């Protein structure tokens, strides 16, 4: 009887729901039992691993709430005699270097951010704006290291393409939901009423959407807004489904299918057949636009 | 001879009120000194200053010739001063023993000495003559029992000065006697006792000397009480003559207004029956814990009944619902004003209007003008001392709070049955006689009135009929013509009663 755990940091997030869903598909296919546990912080991770050990699981896949938890997770897994693999976020040691011994599948946060930045730059060029006159809203949630890496990735691309640093404005959201992003972005827009064209990005689709809602509420036309999200979940798709185009031009979809399905299969092979998974698999994000989101999703195996 | 305890030019003001103004007097060693005055005259304020809880704006307190500079209750303890405040200061969730020791627990290195905690307390409680289990929670005691616990707390330690602020306001004669003998013992030890009371009989019996306060000022000081009369003291307090406090007026009694059948509840297991006629004032007398208050609460629906029916003018009142009782014309003025009466942090006006306002608030909209009028009427009629009708009720003196609560129920129109538990608890002589007059008027207008009181002279003075309760049962009934102090008392004592199986 194979039992495999799948621990994620934010069980309410659609992204992780999807990962679980695809892992479940793998479980059905291979006939093992999947135990899904949400663990929002380090303490919960510890008890989740204990819990898996107690249930007699042989291994687990984890998206950790913090990469620095690495040594603790590794130690705890060893104590419980569990094989461990990471997904999305890679564990690091006390020295800040990745724990190479733990197999990992993921995509670097910086890379995603760069994809977002590139998408924005492309759209800006298409619209023929002068980057020097464009304002950029950085919807930030700096408490979360991943969020910092993502937005910094985007900013690096913007700067490389002629966006002046002075025109990149920070809009710190108090929480990670749309309303908080909306409120934060509104302040930025009102502070710089002279700027006509805006671009916006953030940690996820909700953040970018909040900025778009803010532009709408202060009366900036969609033609003057370019926002690109990350995730490609329902909230982004809803936006594309709206009859009139909004400032939300695209989202970088990362495929929960590979992250969920493949990691689960790999873990199963490891547990059942003793086949060590590859140490590092990097996946790519893919940009979906209003015009092509359906195909992109199909390609990535969502839907 | 210089006085052992001296107040020198003491002043204390609160927002809007000068509670004490330049008060000076002294008390000799081993004397019991009475402190009298109308409600709001400043008696409790004086006691609070003595207790170290508050500081005077100006003036000094001297004990044995030395000026006391204490800044806290603890300091006052150390100086040998112990105070029983007007409002009971017990912690309901702690046991009787723990309450007695509160503030000075017997302990070694912070760890309680549990043996001493219980052993000394048992003796002390027997000493003050109350029969409660030292490990019972105070929450389970009746008001009277709590007051006795409070008294035990004060006499537990050797103090040089003990101040008692209306200690007998909810005690009946038996317990009062116990208190008096305790006071006699303390006095013999040389303790100075400051005694605040509105009961003239007590003061004249107990005290050696007397001070009368009026409007925060010293109205009179009598070093020797045997030289003056009660009427003199009354007029010093009130500023006018009151010849007969009770002022009893006979009335015609009509049909039966209130009929109580088979009433029982958790704390009153044996059923009770009685009737009151229109225009009649029925008194209930008993010792503490006799179950009178519980009876009124069951009657009114404040506690749930086990059995029983309450019928007003032939119509049964829905049980266990104060609003239903009020709508049927039955109101209860409760005994425990702090817990059941005043609505803290609300104004005098709102405290008066809370129940009656439903009568003049169309569509649930309040009428500020009418409420103000109502409040002003009762502030005038009951002579409530307050800087304004907007004053938060907690800042009123005890007696004035009581008047506000009374006002709340007198403001009710359409009342057929008025039940008042300890109506004049803490109310001064002048106001008392006015309240009695009001009761007679209401009764004459056809109301049936039930008065619970622990003060035998009061029950005898104002009622048409008395029912005596003991151990949760009505033991005897007396018509006014047959009132006899000794017989009423003996009916209230458990030992003289046939014990039931």
């Amino acid at each position, binding site marked *: 009887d194979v039992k495999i755990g799948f621990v994620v940091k934010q069980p*309410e997030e*659609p992204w992780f*729901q999807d990962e679980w869903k695809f892992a479940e598909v793998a479980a059905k296919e291979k006939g093992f039992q999947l135990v899904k546990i949400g663990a929002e912080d380090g303490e919960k991770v510890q008890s989740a691993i204990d819990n898996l050990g107690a249930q007699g699981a042989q291994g687990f896949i984890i998206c950790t709430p913090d990469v620095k938890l690495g040594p603790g997770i590794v130690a705890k897994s060893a104590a419980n005699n569990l094989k461990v693999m990471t997904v999305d976020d890679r564990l690091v040691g006390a020295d800040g270097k990745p724990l190479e011994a733990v197999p990992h599948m993921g995509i670097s946060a910086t890379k995603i951010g760069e994809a977002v930045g590139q998408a924005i730059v492309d759209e800006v060029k298409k619209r023929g704006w002068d980057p020097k006159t464009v304002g950029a809203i950085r919807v*930030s*949630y*700096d408490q979360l290291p991943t969020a910092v890496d993502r937005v910094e990735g985007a900013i690096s691309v913007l700067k490389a393409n002629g966006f002046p640093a002075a025109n990149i*404005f*920070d809009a*710190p959201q*108090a*929480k*990670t*939901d*749309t*309303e908080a992003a*909306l409120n*934060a972005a*509104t*302040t*930025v*827009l*009102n*502070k710089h*009423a002279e700027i006509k064209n805006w671009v916006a990005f953030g940690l996820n689709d909700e953040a970018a959407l*909040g900025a778009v809602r*803010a532009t709408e*509420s*202060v009366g900036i036309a969609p033609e003057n807004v370019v926002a690109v999200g990350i995730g490609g*979940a*329902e909230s982004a*798709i809803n*936006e594309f*489904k*709206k*009859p*009139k185009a909004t400032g939300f031009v695209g989202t970088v979809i990362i495929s929960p299918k590979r992250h969920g399905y493949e990691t689960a299969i790999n873990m199963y092979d490891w547990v059942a057949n003793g086949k060590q998974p590859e140490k590092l698999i990097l996946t790519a994000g893919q940009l979906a636009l209003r015009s092509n989101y359906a195909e992109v999703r199909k390609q990535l195996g969502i839907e | 001879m210089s006085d052992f305890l001296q107040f020198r030019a003491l002043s204390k003001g609160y*927002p809007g009120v000068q509670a004490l103004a330049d008060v000076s007097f002294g008390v000799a060693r081993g004397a019991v000194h009475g402190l009298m005055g109308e409600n709001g005259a400043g008696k409790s304020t004086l006691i609070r200053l003595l207790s170290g809880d508050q500081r005077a704006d100006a003036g000094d307190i001297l004990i044995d010739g030395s000026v006391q500079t204490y800044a806290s209750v603890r300091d006052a303890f150390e100086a040998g001063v112990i105070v029983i405040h007007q409002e009971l200061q017990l912690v309901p969730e702690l046991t009787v023993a723990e309450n007695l020791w509160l503030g000075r627990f017997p302990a070694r290195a912070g760890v309680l000495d549990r043996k001493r905690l219980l052993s000394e307390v048992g003796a002390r409680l027997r000493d003050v003559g109350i029969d409660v289990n030292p490990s019972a929670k105070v929450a389970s005691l009746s008001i009277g029992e709590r007051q006795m616990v409070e008294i035990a707390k004060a006499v537990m330690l050797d103090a040089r000065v003990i101040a008692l602020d209306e200690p007998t306001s909810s005690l009946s004669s038996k317990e009062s006697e116990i208190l008096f003998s305790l006071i006699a013992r303390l006095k013999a030890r040389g303790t100075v006792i400051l005694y605040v009371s509105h009961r003239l009989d007590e003061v004249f019996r107990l005290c050696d000397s007397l001070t009368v306060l009026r409007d925060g000022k010293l109205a009179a000081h009598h070093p020797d009480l045997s030289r003056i009369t009660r009427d003199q003291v009354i007029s010093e307090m009130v500023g006018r003559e009151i010849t007969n406090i009770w002022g009893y007026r006979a009335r015609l009694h009509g049909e039966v207004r209130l009929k109580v059948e088979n009433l029982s509840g958790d704390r009153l297991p044996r059923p009770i029956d009685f009737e009151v006629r229109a225009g009649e004032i029925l008194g209930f007398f008993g010792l503490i814990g006799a179950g009178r208050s519980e009876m009124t609460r069951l009657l009114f629906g*404040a506690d749930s009944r086990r059995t029983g029916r309450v019928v007003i003018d032939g119509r049964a009142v829905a049980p266990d619902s*104060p*609003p239903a009782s*009020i*709508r049927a014309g039955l109101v*209860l003025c*409760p005994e425990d004003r702090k817990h059941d*009466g*005043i*609505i*803290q*942090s*609300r104004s005098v006006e*709102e405290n008066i*209007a*809370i*129940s009656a306002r439903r009568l003049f*608030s169309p569509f*649930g*909209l*309040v009428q*500020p003008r009418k409420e103000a009028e109502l409040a002003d009427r009762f502030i005038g009629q009951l002579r409530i001392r307050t800087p304004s009708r907007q004053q938060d009720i907690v800042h009123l003196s005890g007696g004035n709070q009581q008047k506000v609560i009374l006002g*709340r129920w007198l403001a009710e129109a359409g009342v057929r049955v008025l039940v008042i538990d300890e109506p004049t608890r803490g109310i001064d002589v002048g106001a008392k006689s006015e309240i009695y007059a009001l009761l007679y008027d209401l009764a004459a207008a056809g109301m049936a009135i039930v008065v619970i009181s622990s003060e035998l002279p009061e029950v005898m003075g104002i009622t048409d009929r008395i029912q005596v309760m003991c151990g949760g049962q009505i033991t005897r009934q007396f018509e006014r013509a047959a009132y006899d102090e000794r017989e009423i008392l003996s009916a209230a004592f458990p030992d003289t009663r046939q014990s039931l199986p």
Partner: protein
Amino acid sequence: MQSLKKILLGEQGLVVIFALAFVLVSITVPNFLTERNMLGLLQSVVTIGIVSCTMMFCLASRDFDLSVGSTVAFSGMVAVMASNSTGSILLGLLAAITCGAIVGVINGVVIARFRINALITTLATMQIVRGFALISSDGRAVGINDPAFYDLALTRILGVPAPVWVMGLFFVLFGFVLNRTVFGKNTLAIGGNPEAARLAGVNVVTMRIWIFALQGLVCGVAGILLASRITSGQPNAATGLELSVISACVLGGVSLAGGRAAMTGVIVGVLIMGIAENVMNLLNIQAFYQYVVRGMILLLAVLLDNLRVSAATMSRR
């Protein structure tokens, strides 16, 4: 001089202090006092402001409600889903308000009738309702089919967006209810001394249920407006709202021990919360320092109010 002192220390002292602070901020913080920023600020406090109205009643009657955030999210979801499935926005709104009110009634009945601790009860419903919001949409945001739904938030009357009008209306309405109706007076009486209020003929149980029901209903309205502003129903919306709302009320002088409340105070409390966020963003204060500043402002506001009260007591001596 004397009269200035009177104004500062009087009943409306908090309002006056707030007004002074407002003027100060307007002068020192660039871009603060612009029409756009003011409207943005007001819109950002709509949810807190609306829910504070009824939370004031809840606290004034010595109760406590932690479930407001979940209820706002849940009724927002219901509004969107019901509108989508029936095709009628009106039905959607009715469904949302009904759901909100039902949550409130359940809270009220459990707390008042079964006498279960309000903190635990509403903590439980907070979880349960959030769970429902997540389950009903599988944890995903739900888009709105009919764009007319967005107009709820985008319509402007005299240049001011509708949600702000709604908030203003609620302020006026609940201020009136608190001060001028038997309902309001009884709420305060229950908070002052529940037992005494009961013995004075106030039907405490019914009143408390009503207060919770109103709270739920108002959360429903807030949920609808929120969904319309963010053009979707989001199951994760409004987390932590309960603490913001309770803080706004307490800042505004509502006593957690019950019996004391004033609408002007609550409005000031709500605005302080909103302005603090707004100014911090205008001044570009770094995210981590925002925590510290936010905490300091909270402390400062109560401390000032406290000083004012004790100074008032002093001066009258």
